[in-house]
Every structure is written in C-alpha cells, then in structure tokens.
C-alpha cells in the first residue's frame, strides 16, 4: 500500500482537503531546501513536491524557470536532490513526490533511479514530459521499487485518454487547472472543476489540482471539488523574495500557513 494512498485515505477520513506545496531543489541552496522540507511539513503539508532543476523547463512559467536557473548555477544535480530528501527524511514523515523533466532521469539511468529514489525515501515521481504512451518502461521500473508514477491530465485531455491514463496511474492523478505553463493566476478557471469531474468518472484515484493556485481562497475553492491543491509558483516566489535573508525558512513557512489559516476546517 503506497504511503500516498494512505495520506489521501487519512484526509478523506478527516474530511479535509490536502495541501501539496512545491519547491525546487537547491533553490537557493541545498541546505535551505532541507530546512524548507522540514518547515513545510511543520506548516501542514500533506505531501511535498520537490522539483529537480532542469535547463529547459518548457512546462514552467518564469518563476519556476528562475528557481531552476538559481539551482543550476550552484551545480545542483539529481543526485544532490536525492541526498537532500534522504537527509530531510530523518526529521519528517511527509510523502515526497519527485517532480522532474525526463532528461536528467534518463541520464541518471532508469534502473539505478528506482533503487535510489526508494532508498532516499521518495514515494512517487512525476515526469512532466512523459506521457503514458512513452512511459511503459518507467512505470515498470518504479513499480518494482514501490514508487508511484504520477501522471498529469489537462483540460485538453480527451475522455478516451483520461481512461488510459487512469489505468496507468498510481498514487494520485494531477489535474492541470488550465492550458498553460505553471504560474500564479488571479482566478480559477471553470476548466479545473469539469476536468476533475471527468477524472472521477473514470478513476477512483485521488485528484490533486495544480497550476495557478496562489491564495487561501483558491485553495478552499479547489478543495470543494478536488482532493488536494498544489501550490508551486506562489511559494517559489517567496523563496526568491527572501533569498539571502535569515528569515527565508520562517517566511516561507509563514506563507504556507497563511494559505491554510482561513480554511479553518483544515486545522487538526
């Protein structure tokens, strides 16, 4: 039984929505990332997504692109990212999803990766530019190590494909709220809710919604129709704003808490 499914099971029993923050590994440096993982867990994260920096992040908007650039300037690698999780896991128990583009994983080696991901205490992997059509060998490699492979669905995804993705997915399904790259937007599109409904019709897996969520209002809005909300760019922007400040970790934690504080039913 995957720990991610456990987490969603617990959320369901408590009747609350999940909070999934995203940060980029090595932004602004690896030690801070470790501290941020611990802080986000303390701030109420149910799952944490950790981005592997990549030179050509085509699915990302400017905020996460810049985070990748900051990490790459320090030479942060996939190996560093795995060690970072491994260290943080000594202090926290929150499931971690490794969020990456395919090429760094390909270079690392598929066979070796499953082993090392599991060893680092990572529970799932989401590969932004890997569709189920190309994903067969990766699904097998991770399944052998009890690691979930998370797939994206988008408002443009056809009903037939949704069904196929649902068959291949494990852990949860990540619904992209709108056509576009990552980045904060002022309002949630209607697309997101109808997409989640379409997913529910073909799958029992929990559904998380991401892309463009940045305010407590949007978080509670997403919880009305989905199982969890992913907050990426809005958090990464806080990391960027506070880079170099001794208050960075506390400040990002405070921002994360502020996303949840108005959603009183979340406090346990």
């Amino acid at each position, binding site marked *: 039984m995957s720990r991610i499914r456990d987490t969603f099971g617990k959320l369901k029993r408590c009747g609350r929505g999940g909070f999934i923050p995203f940060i980029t590994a090595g932004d602004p440096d690896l030690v801070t990332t470790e501290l941020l993982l611990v802080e986000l867990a303390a701030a109420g994260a149910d799952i944490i997504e950790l981005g592997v920096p990549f030179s*050509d992040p085509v699915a990302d*908007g400017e905020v996460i692109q810049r985070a990748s650039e900051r990490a790459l300037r320090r030479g942060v*690698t996939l190996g560093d990212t795995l060690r970072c999780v491994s260290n943080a896991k000594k202090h926290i128990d929150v499931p971690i999803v490794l969020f990456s583009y395919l*090429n760094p994983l*390909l270079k*690392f080696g598929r066979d070796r990766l499953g082993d090392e991901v599991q060893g680092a205490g990572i529970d799932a992997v989401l590969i932004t530019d890997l569709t189920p059509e*190309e994903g067969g060998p990766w699904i097998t490699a991770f399944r052998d190590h009890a690691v979930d492979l998370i797939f994206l669905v988008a408002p*443009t995804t056809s009903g037939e494909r949704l069904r196929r993705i649902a068959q291949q997915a494990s852990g949860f399904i990540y619904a*992209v709220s709108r056509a576009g*790259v990552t980045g904060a937007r002022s309002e949630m599109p209607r697309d997101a809710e109808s997409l989640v409904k379409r997913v529910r019709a073909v799958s029992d897996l929990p559904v998380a919604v991401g892309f463009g969520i940045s305010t407590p209002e949007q978080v509670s809005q997403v919880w009305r129709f989905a199982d969890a909300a992913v907050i990426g760019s809005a958090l990464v922007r806080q990391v960027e704003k506070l880079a170099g400040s001794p208050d960075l970790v506390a400040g990002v934690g405070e921002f994360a808490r502020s996303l949840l504080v108005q959603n009183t039913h979340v406090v346990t």
Partner: protein
Amino acid sequence: MQKSPITKSEPDEGGHWGKFGGRYVPETLVAPLEELTNEFMNARDDPGFWAELNRLLRDYCGRPTPLFHARRLTAHAGGAQIYLKREDLLHTGAHKINNAVGQALLARRMGKRRVIAETGAGQHGVATATVCALFGLNCVIYMGAEDVRRQALNVFRMRLLGAEVVTVSAGTRTLKDAINEALRDWVTNVHDTYYLLGSALGPHPYPLMVREFQSVIGREAREQILSATGTLPRALVACVGGGSNAIGLFHPFIADEGVRLIGVEAGGRGDSLGEHAARFHAGMASGGGQVGVLQGTMSYVLQNANGQIATTHSISAGLDYSAIGPEHAFLHDSSRADYARASDAEALEGFQLCAKLEGIIPALETAHAIMPAIRVARELSQDDSVIINLSGRGDKDVQLVADLHSQ
C-alpha cells in the same frame, strides 16, 4: 555484427524511428499534437492539398529549383562532378519556405488564425512571416537575443512582413530557447494557435511532417541528376542543424544504396562541450554521442554529465542547436548516413570558395557543407557526381563576415 542496409526510413504510428522520435511533451500538448497528426495524415492523402501546395511552390516560391553543375568547384576539388541544388534561389532565400507553405496550408485547413514559430538564423522566421502575410494570418516569431543581435537584418524583414518578433532572453538566448518559448506560448494558446515548427525535430508529427514538405528537394534533385548524368550521384552532402534541408535531400535517395548520405554538423571553434554543435561527435569531453530527450523528441542531445542541456557554439545561428532531428539519429545508428563536421573556420573557407569560384554566396549554415563535399569529391572519379544542398543564400551573413574580416 554487420547491419543489413536500410532501404526505408518510416516512423511507426507514434512517430518513432527505432527508439528515436516519439512525443515527450506536457499532457496539455498531446491533444493538439494528435489533432495536428490527424489533419496532416488527411492532407497527405488529399490530392487537392498537394495540388494547391505544388501550385504555390511553383508560382510563389519558384520551384523547381535548378541543379547547377559547379564546374569551377569541381575543377578545384579535382574529382567527382559537383552539383549544387539551388534552394538559395527560392523566395525568401532558403529551403525553409517549402515547409512554411505546407504547414500554413494546414493551419488554414484547421481554421487557426494565429501562427507562432521559432527561428535561429531568421530564415524560418522570415519564411513563416511571409506565408502568414500571404494567407492573412497573425504571426508571432520567437528569436533568441543572441540571434537577434547576429541577424538584425532578418529581424527587420520579419517586422516588415507584419510579424511580431519576440526576443527571448532566457537560457542560452539562441534557437533552443526560442523553441522553449514558442512551446510555452502554444501550451497557453492551444485553442486558436498553430505552431509552425521549422525543422525536422520536436514531438511527432513534426519530424515526419517537415520531412514530407522538404522532400521535394530530393525528389527534384533525383530527377535532375538522372537527366543530367544518366546515373545516380555517389554522395549527397548537406549541413545539419535540426536537419530539415538534409533530410529533405536525403529521403528520396534512402533506397538507393549506392548513394552516400553525408550530413555536416557545426564543429564550431573547439572540441569541448559548449564549443560546437556536433551532436554525434563522441570525442572525449565533447558532450556528444549521447541519447536524450529535448523539446519533445528522443535523439542525440549535447548535455552534461547530469542531463542538463549544454550550450552550443557555431558561427551560424541556424546550426547552433543542442539536439538533432530523430530521423537523423536513426540514419546515423543504422549507418545509412554518415555525419561529418566542419569548424567555423572551414565554414568561412567554404563560404569564400563558393563565392569566388561560382559567384554564389551561400548562407553560413550551408557553407559548412562545402569543404567536406570537396573532400568527398576528391576521393571519387570524374565520372561520379556529388550533390551539395545549397540550402540558403548568404546575404544575411555578409555583415557578420565583413565584421570578422575587419577584426
């Protein structure tokens, strides 16, 4: 183990040539790529589509282009007869228009009113801006800041044609970053936007589709050389950035086992990673010879030990790219095609030689093919022939070369 010679090069339904190609994209782009694939497959079987395309290629672009017997280059090489396939004589000055017209017709078929494209040297951007003007479509061109600097004249041409040129300052500020930005635009505006990709790369169906639109080069050249010499050439030589002019020339000759296919990559100014754009160059620390995924396709990709995409260098913006089209990767691994490289200095040498001996100023991209072709011709007899794809003209590069001379 002896590989059996390949006589065809067709992808499977998912756009794979062996392990290369495919569709490695964010989920949002899968549906528009499927829609595009269906539309392209329908158009490919529609005689009406080809009739209109061929009419435009003839009346608007100036096809067929001549196959010119380059007697003075031949004498200089002292071997096989050298022929130049004169794509430089096409409207807008390069082979890029072949593909731009074909895809613009598709965009119109699909009812898309907004067209976006990336450009390196600016030739594909100019070709796209041109066909958008012709068809009355809105046009946005993404171009890296470094290329905007190197190719200022083409930037002005695109604006003159009514296109909006967006300067991309992210990453290495060249073609790769322009493609990233175009993909981001497309993923955001999929409902009304057509992405007119300019080379035989990217996710399926682009490598196949671009090849199909560029294969007119090889079909004409094959007929022309047979009528001029009565026999097939011994070799075809073409420069390879993403690889569209090369695959366009090569593809109709794939079954002709006696015809060597030679692609020329940009050797740049050195052997180490970042100093060249030779994706197959597997020398020590060159970063080449590695299979990876970049911008939607699996192919050979210049990258560092951690899978980060490497910067490249070439004197020519059009070859300055970290990956190569997947069909070239397949032809390379199956040994059907060979890939050489020419340095910046050799490209300049070829540029000047072609200008002085034939009165033809080639694009700097194209110029990479000249010296390797001369070496190939030299090994052959006078009864043999070699075709160089003269993929573009060099007007856009005259200023850059003049600046190099004055340094």
